[in-house]
């Protein structure tokens, strides 16, 4: 195993005889259920602890009581906020927030017996999302530095209902983990060929996986993608993943397209050395699409979806593409290369063209760690959303709000498009610093057929995190998996 995460078990409410007991408590209510039982068993230690610590149940509040009695090692009091305002998202955040407080315990029981089973399942999702860890390459870590909690039991009054609710959530979590793992892998391990091989594993879930190599892509005329790849010793790949979960035949599929630059040196327009190691996650768009396909197939979503990823490495090798080169994309449009470090849009150009030609999608969403400009524009909380379709944009914005994978819409327009006019070709691949992420989106839009609803998510600021949040440990965030799973669930699945 390359990663670790706690196993979830749903159990009937019963007091543990050892380990950690988590008591999620709403604001301003008396202790009931397991919490009341624990209080009685410990001779009122919990009531005294609540009083002494000033714990009120406010949302996000957490207090630990050690050795309260009855053999229990510790009690973690977790504030849920006002009971009538508790949302599934809050339950999930609470699940994530409890993890750091119990990771060092060997046994963990979460007393979710007062919550509806569906919320208990959402809490479990929070636990695993936060408890995931990529420790494949840690060989000398001391045991005391590793989390001990391998299993987290969730006590619920409705075990079957909680298990039923958990099943699709677990599938989504697996998709998130796959995505995080791919993004975390170092670039000497995760080459385009290796990543394509890993996509093959999705066949186990019933996904049809097709891998195209350089010869296939040459035949298709992928001059833009191949131009990026030609400076690297690692061959490029395109992977097409099809999940046919719709009950009706002959409908239009939804297409998701990801930028997968497994390492981006910038090429001949090479990047500064400081921070270049971050460029291993320049395939996070593709990582998201692969994880999303795993999530949808894993929960057997009733929808036809095609995920496509363009996988290349951008290196300054002896055959590398140069600034000044003109390449012909699969669409026939020619591109003057001004900066070889604006390579993501070149990869997307060909893959998007293929997706539309081959699948005539109902709508198409691409994800890419595309520009530094989007970080300067928005920071790390919102990804940039560009779209030619207001209805699709609204759906994405709404899905972003409920999943916590937030989006902010950015403008498109003719005035920006003019910035990528070329003197020698149909367009150039950069439009200068002003509006840098907008001109990148304009470039991509030139490869979208009129009438195809399209959205482009610039995730350069959200794919990787330097600090922990409630449900996402620092590192690869898998941004987009839950967002796109949600938009499909809300709008595209057969009833």
């Amino acid at each position, binding site marked *: 195993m390359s990663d670790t995460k706690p196993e979830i078990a749903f159990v009937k409410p019963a007091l543990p005889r050892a380990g950690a007991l988590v008591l999620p408590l709403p604001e301003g209510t008396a202790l009931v259920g397991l919490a009341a039982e624990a209080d009685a068993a410990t001779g009122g230690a919990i009531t005294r602890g609540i009083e002494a610590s000033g714990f009120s149940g406010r949302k996000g509040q957490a207090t630990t009581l050690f050795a309260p009695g009855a053999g229990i090692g510790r009690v973690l009091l977790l504030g849920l906020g006002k009971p009538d305002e508790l949302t599934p998202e809050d339950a999930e955040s609470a699940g994530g927030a409890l993890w750091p407080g119990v990771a060092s315990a060997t046994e963990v029981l979460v007393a979710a017996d007062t919550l509806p089973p569906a919320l208990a399942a959402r809490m479990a999702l929070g636990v695993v999302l936060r408890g995931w860890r990529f420790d494949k390459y840690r060989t000398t870590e001391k045991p005391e530095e590793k989390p001990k909690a391998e299993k987290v039991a969730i006590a619920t009054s409705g075990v079957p209902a909680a298990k039923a609710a958990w099943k699709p959530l677990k599938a989504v979590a697996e998709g998130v983990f796959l995505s995080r793992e791919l993004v975390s892998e170092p670039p000497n391990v995760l080459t385009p060929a290796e990543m394509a091989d890993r996509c093959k594993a999705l066949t186990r879930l019933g996904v049809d996986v097709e891998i195209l190599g350089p010869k296939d892509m040459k035949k298709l005329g992928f001059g833009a993608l191949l131009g990026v790849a030609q400076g690297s010793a690692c061959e490029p790949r395109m992977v097409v993943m099809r999940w046919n979960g719709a009950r009706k035949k002959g409908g239009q599929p939804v297409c998701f397209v990801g930028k997968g630059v497994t390492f981006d040196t910038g090429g001949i327009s090479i990047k500064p050395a400081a921070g270049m190691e971050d460029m291993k996650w320049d395939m996070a768009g593709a990582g998201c699409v692969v994880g999303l396909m795993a999530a949808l197939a894993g929960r057997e979503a009733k929808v036809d979806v095609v995920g496509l990823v363009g996988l290349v490495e951008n290196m300054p090798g002896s055959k590398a593409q140069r600034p000044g080169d003109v390449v012909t994309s699969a669409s026939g449009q020619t591109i003057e290369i001004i900066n070889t470090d604006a390579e993501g849009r070149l990869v997307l150009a060909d893959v998007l063209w293929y997706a539309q030609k081959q699948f005539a999608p109902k709508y198409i969403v691409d994800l890419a760690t595309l520009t530094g400009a989007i970080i300067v*524009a928005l920071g790390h909380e919102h990804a940039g959303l560009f779209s030619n379709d207001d209805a699709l944009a609204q759906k994405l914005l709404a899905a972003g709000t409920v999943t916590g994978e937030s989006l902010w819409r950015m*403008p498109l327009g003719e005035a920006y498009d003019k*910035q990528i006019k070329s003197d020698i070709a149909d367009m150039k691949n950069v439009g200068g610093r002003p509006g840098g992420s907008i001109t990148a989106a304009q470039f991509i839009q030139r490869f979208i057929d009129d009438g195809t609803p399209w959205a482009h998510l610039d995730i350069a600021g959200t794919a990787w995190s330097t600090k922990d949040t409630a449900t996402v440990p620092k590192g690869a965030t898998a941004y987009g998996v839950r967002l796109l799973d949600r938009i499909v669930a809300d709008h595209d699945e057969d009833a």
Partner: protein
Amino acid sequence: MRYGLPRLRLRFDAPKPGRTTLLALAAGPAPHEAAAAAGFTGASGQAVRLSAPGFPDLVMAGAGAGEARDWERAGGEAMALLLAEPAATAAGPRPTTSLRAGPAEMRPLRRIALDLRGLPAEAAMAVATGAALRGWQPPIRRRGATPRPPRLMLHVIEDEAMAPAFARMEAMLRGVALARTLVAEPANILTPKRFAARMRHLARCGVQVEVFGRSALEAAGAGAILAVGRASANPPRLVVLRWPGEGDPVVFVGKGITFDTGGISIKPALGMEDMRADMAGAAAAAGAILTLALRNSPASACAVLALAENMPGADAWRPGDIIHTLSGRTVETIDTDAEGRMVLADALAWAVRELEPAALVDLATLTGSIVTALGHHRAGLFGNDPPLLAMVAAAGETVGDAVWPMPIAKEHEEALKSDIADLRQCASGKLQPDACHAAAFLRHFAEGVPWAHLDIAGVESREEANWQGPAGATGFGVRLLDALAAARFEDPDRLT
């Protein structure tokens, strides 16, 4: 004062035959053979110069679908064509046989007739607006006489809507021209003191003008403006312009850094000359007040202009300094080149304390970050009041001062936490969403009053001439504020 604006006259007769004439037409069949021969279709953006019966020098411009902005563009494109070849005729440039006559460009057009007789008031004034704004001239200081912009004779049908529409347009044009002129002036000519002195001229139009100098700012506790202006030999000023009306005023707050070297966090030399335009927010606020006054607006409006020069010097403000702002908040300085938010902090606080604003709208050439985000085609719009923001965006869209809403997120607020003061002025490091950080910073000083913030860096100047004006100052914001005042602040019942 014309501020470089062409003189305009409204006439209810036909253009004199033989005079250079401008004619705007919506898309459709060419009106005569000459137009057809020139390929004129009326498409938006098209302008041709030709000879037609009775009109030896006729400029025809297309207004496409005939929206207000299309008419304006027609006027602008036609004017651009005339300015490019001022002495040309349909037969080509006039032969220069006499040495005394000089080359063609030395003999400018004196008068241009705008044949607007086929148009209703709104469209007619839109054409005139386009021509006048394109014909605006920056303050030019060369040896010898500078040609004046040509006079524009607006020939319209007799319609009672014409005169009020004309007056309204003139007021707007003069506001834009004032703003453009202020932005175009170099920093040795337009110091904070001289900017303030020019504001005193607005008293002639009924605007109440108050100027606060260094000692008054010290008495008021305006530590941020004083810090920014400290090292300069040209001390800072706070100027308050009041256009009195009923009810609490809408207050326009403008950043007026007459020159921004960056201070101790000094800017690279390349392109620093553009920093004379770092007072474009204050210029727009002043221009808007002039417009409201000239058209005798029933709105109650004020402008607060924070004027300072940001210089390095022996007694300069430093990174690390803690500044006591007028609001009472302390601010830790990270970068002395983030000076705009400092002067705005005090100006906003002053407005909140002294003017009981119904709403605050600030304009500032604030961040390079917004240029990276939105380029030169839209300003960044931030704020704390969604209805006000929607009105600002709508007003901007109507008049062509385009904006785009931007977020103030939790992370942006958190980035301003300081270890030793109430607020950090900005975050350090590369790839910072500085425009969002600046907006999060300013939000504190609006104190909950409905507030909109326009980051106009990138739209205050244009690199190349286009149909909207010559290269340089755009006057961005004046028309937006004028339209906003008209839509929201002129009917007291709408103030909630």
